[in-house]
């Protein structure tokens, strides 16, 4: 196995040559790299973040934010509408994710085809899903992994007549510590770090951690060389050393934020007006709930039960499609509801109040529970460069606002249904209610504007979408960047709209598709 990383790597410039260079080692990159390497190709993986294993994971929030989270968890969209959540380590965001592992719903695949995506038919994806589920031990969460908050979510949904189902989990012998977001110290969560990264390495792939992919050199329509900066891991800044890689094909899999950014920094052979457009991120409105007795939401797995009743938006008339204006009148839905899980420092950061008011809430932490909604974005955002800085924009208006407010209302109904004594919406005005009768009034009065609400952005994508033409898409059905002969994208950036469920399994399945195409197109195997 070849893993090169800081500090050894910062000693000299490095030259590499390979069949395929894969930029990124998360769900998209690692699965593509493993598939390519196991097919006999010479693969190099370039990862900006560090290579950490379970022996480095200490379950302390700030320590782990520094190791595995992009921007140490401090990044936000340009107007602070949402906090940006992404990985910066070997294994990518899968190292801090919740291990929720859904197949792409058939209705969403149909929508993607209607939006101009070709190929990726349901039978092909089903075969890939089956293989990935076996590789990652995906299975419905069992009773042993249902903490009190998840049980409350389940019970509330049942009483309200909402469809609730066990969340498929990618785990083996989970010890239920509750530290999924700090990286699994037990290798129980089947992240890329313990699945497709080692598979790729075992098949001969070479991994370069602490290397930031920066510049593609083109010869006409062909990318010939990738230039990278070797980073000084403690600071994340360039060490002054270079890694240059000559490759026959390039797979960009840097994730929903970084892939559009990387491509925007290139002099691509063809102008691509859709690059950085059509962005989505599943903004997550949450509701805190104080219960009469202990909930201990920070232990066991985060999401054992999920409310699927409202996954699709409901309209009087035609359903609204991401980025399209024509639709009937919105009624409800367009999100998944889950129990929330937060360790104390993150919880403290987002609870309302200052001074004694804030510490009084923190002292109730054992009784503090809550829920979170993964909003299926309907209004597109953007990623662009401004004076060299990545700027992410996420609209909190229009259809996104409708869905966020409805998700607040539904969460509040459920939480009161199971006995919450007080709900907090975490907004700048510190909206709190103690009666279900006040839900509509309170939610209607919440000011939904930048920086005033707690919204994370955990599932970015769409910034290099797949389609038929370069006028409105970035890659074709073969994942190939329009205008380039040998540059491919294999991550959620290619999704034409949000997948309506956790995207990890879909990302991997699409990467399998992309890897097979790269192999056939350039290596005849």
């Amino acid at each position, binding site marked *: 196995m070849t893993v090169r990383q*800081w500090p050894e790597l910062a000693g000299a410039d490095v030259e590499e040559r390979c069949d395929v260079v894969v930029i990124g080692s998360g769900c998209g990159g690692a699965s593509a790299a493993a598939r390519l390497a196991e097919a006999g190709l010479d693969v190099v993986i370039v990862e900006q973040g*560090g290579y950490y294993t379970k022996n*480095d*994971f*200490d*379950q*302390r*929030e*700030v*320590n*782990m934010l*520094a*190791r595995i989270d992009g*921007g*140490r*968890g*401090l*990044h*936000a969209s340009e*107007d*602070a509408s949402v906090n940006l959540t992404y990985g910066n380590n070997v294994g990518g965001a899968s190292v801090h994710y919740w291990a929720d592992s859904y197949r792409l719903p058939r209705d969403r695949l149909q929508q993607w085809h209607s939006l101009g995506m070709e190929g990726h038919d349901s039978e092909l994806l089903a075969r890939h899903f089956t293989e990935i589920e076996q590789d990652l031990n995906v299975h419905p969460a069992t009773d042993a992994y249902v903490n009190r908050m998840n049980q409350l979510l389940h019970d509330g949904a049942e009483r309200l007549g909402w469809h609730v189902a066990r969340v498929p989990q990618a785990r083996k012998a989970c*010890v239920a*510590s509750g*530290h999924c977001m*700090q990286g699994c*110290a037990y290798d129980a969560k089947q992240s890329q770090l313990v699945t497709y990264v080692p598979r790729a390495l075992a098949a001969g792939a070479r991994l370069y951690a602490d290397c930031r992919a920066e510049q593609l050199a083109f010869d006409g329509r062909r990318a010939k060389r990738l230039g990278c900066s070797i980073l000084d*891991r*403690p*600071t*994340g800044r360039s060490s002054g050393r270079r890694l240059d890689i000559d490759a026959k094909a390039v797979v960009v899999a840097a994730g929903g934020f970084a892939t559009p950014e990387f491509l925007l920094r290139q002099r691509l052979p063809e102008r691509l007006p859709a690059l950085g457009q059509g962005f989505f991120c599943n903004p997550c409105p949450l509701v805190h709930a104080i219960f009469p007795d202990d909930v201990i939401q*920070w232990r066991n797995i985060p999401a054992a039960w999920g409310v699927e009743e409202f996954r699709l938006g409901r309209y009087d008339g035609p359903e609204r499609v991401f980025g399209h204006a024509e639709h009937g009148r919105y009624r409800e839905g367009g999100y998944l509801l889950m129990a929330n899980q937060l*360790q*104390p*420092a*993150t*919880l*403290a*950061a*987002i*609870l309302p109040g*200052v*001074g*004694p008011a*804030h*510490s009084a809430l*923190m*002292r109730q*932490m*054992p009784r503090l529970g809550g829920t979170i909604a993964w909003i299926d974005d309907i209004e597109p955002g953007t990623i662009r460069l401004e004076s060299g*800085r990545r700027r992410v924009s996420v609209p909190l208006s229009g259809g996104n606002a409708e869905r966020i407010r409805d998700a607040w209302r539904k969460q509040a109904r459920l939480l009161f249904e199971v006995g919450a004594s007080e709900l907090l919406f975490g907004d*700048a*005005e*510190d909206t709190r209610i103690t009666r279900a009768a006040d839900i509509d009034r309170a939610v209607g009065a919440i000011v939904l*504007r*930048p*920086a*005033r609400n707690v919204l994370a952005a955990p599932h970015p994508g769409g910034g290099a979408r797949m389609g038929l033409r370069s006028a409105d898409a970035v890659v074709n059905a073969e994942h190939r960047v329009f205008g380039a002969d040998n540059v491919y994208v294999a991550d959620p950036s290619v999704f034409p709209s949000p997948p309506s469920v956790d995207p990890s399994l879909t990302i991997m399945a699409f990467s399998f598709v992309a890897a097979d195409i790269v192999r056939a197109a350039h290596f005849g195997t």
Partner: protein
Amino acid sequence: MAYRALVQLSRRSALGLGAVGTVALVAAGSLRWFTHGYPPGAQVLLALGDKEQAIVTSLVDALIDGGEGLPTADDAGVVQRIDEQLWGADVHTQSDLRAALQVVEHAPILFGAPGRFTSLSRRRRVEVLRAMLASKRDVFVQVATALKQLTMLCYYSAEASWGAIGYDGPWIKEEKLPPSTLRYRSLLAAKQRGEA
């Protein structure tokens, strides 16, 4: 520094301050900057300058309650933890955080509290922060929220705070410091010894 940071933040976010507010803020910042020095910080730090250390110290004192089993901000080492976060952040985040500190220092006049933030009583500082968090102008909410979140993250990541909130702590008992913390502490120790 203060002037530039304020102007940059003003331009970047269009502020929502309105012309009067912007002028008042910038004027306050520049005049204060040129007429009032800040004493050397109480702690030797890497990223926060003397003025920034004074602002962060005042900010943390207002945000953190302590008592009844909770440690003081000093005992939890919050100012140094914030210094480490700033030191380890990328240049854009560093720039934003530094600008946010300048806004906090010179914004009280816009919330009915004449004087720099660092010169106010604790009660007035708490009032100003509450007013900023609930302001109709997004930029103040943005600034106050970012600094509050950073402060709370640093305070409640300190083990000393866990007992009082009923948190039983990580199952991995041995803390394993990340490379950035090891480098930070090494450089800080060298600076404290007068070597840098």
